[in-house]
């Protein structure tokens, strides 16, 4: 069985400061891991994915995530938040047809 926990339901940062969205996962296998972003009234858009290559994964819009097997974590970071980053973010663990979504983290960016 697989599961994913997003440790914060809401994160608020000021524009220009770093972003950290935390994700822990549980899997009996070597899973694939994804981060998606959802803007209001839109579907989910892929930010980045980890599939057992490099542990530091770079995505779109300056986001990156580090896979830490010993900590079963896949935290999402960005050095400097932009107003357009305000959205909901989902961490996903996947293997074959079993894809599990976290409950989501809402990111607010203050001017």
């Amino acid at each position, binding site marked *: 069985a697989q599961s994913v926990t997003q440790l914060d*339901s809401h994160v608020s940062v000021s524009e220009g400061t770093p972003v950290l969205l935390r994700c822990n996962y549980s899997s009996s296998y070597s*899973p*694939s891991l*994804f981060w*998606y972003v959802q803007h209001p*009234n*839109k*579907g*989910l*858009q*892929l930010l980045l*994915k980890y*599939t057992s290559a490099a542990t530091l994964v770079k995505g779109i819009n300056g986001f990156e995530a580090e896979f830490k097997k010993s900590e079963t974590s896949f935290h999402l970071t960005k050095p400097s938040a932009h107003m357009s980053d305000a959205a909901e973010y*989902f961490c996903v663990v*996947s*293997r*074959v*047809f*079993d*894809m599990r*979504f*976290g*409950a*989501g983290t809402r990111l607010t960016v203050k001017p």
Partner: protein
Amino acid sequence: DVKVTQSSRYLVKRTGEKVFLECVQDMDHENMFWYRQDPGLGLRLIYFSYDVKMKEKGDIPEGYSVSREKKERFSLILESASTNQTSMYLCASSRGTAGDQPQHFGDGTRLSIL
């Protein structure tokens, strides 16, 4: 560019009606999925299909059925709509079977059952 299109952005139906939600993808993907999204619960899988005419139940299939007669089209059917099926419905598609390929999502259908 990759495109998943859901036929309606907003839909209002009455209790007991039969409701059809349509989804079309233009990427020749083998797999298609239907999710519902509710605040605080993330996305929950209703049904998925890995080939034409094939379907598998997800985590919450009760009250729903699906149809996949053509590779590019995946329909979700609410047999007799109830108020607890008011939700955002998201369709997605993906390639392959290993789970290492990302899903591509439509913009969603916000369904209200009165």
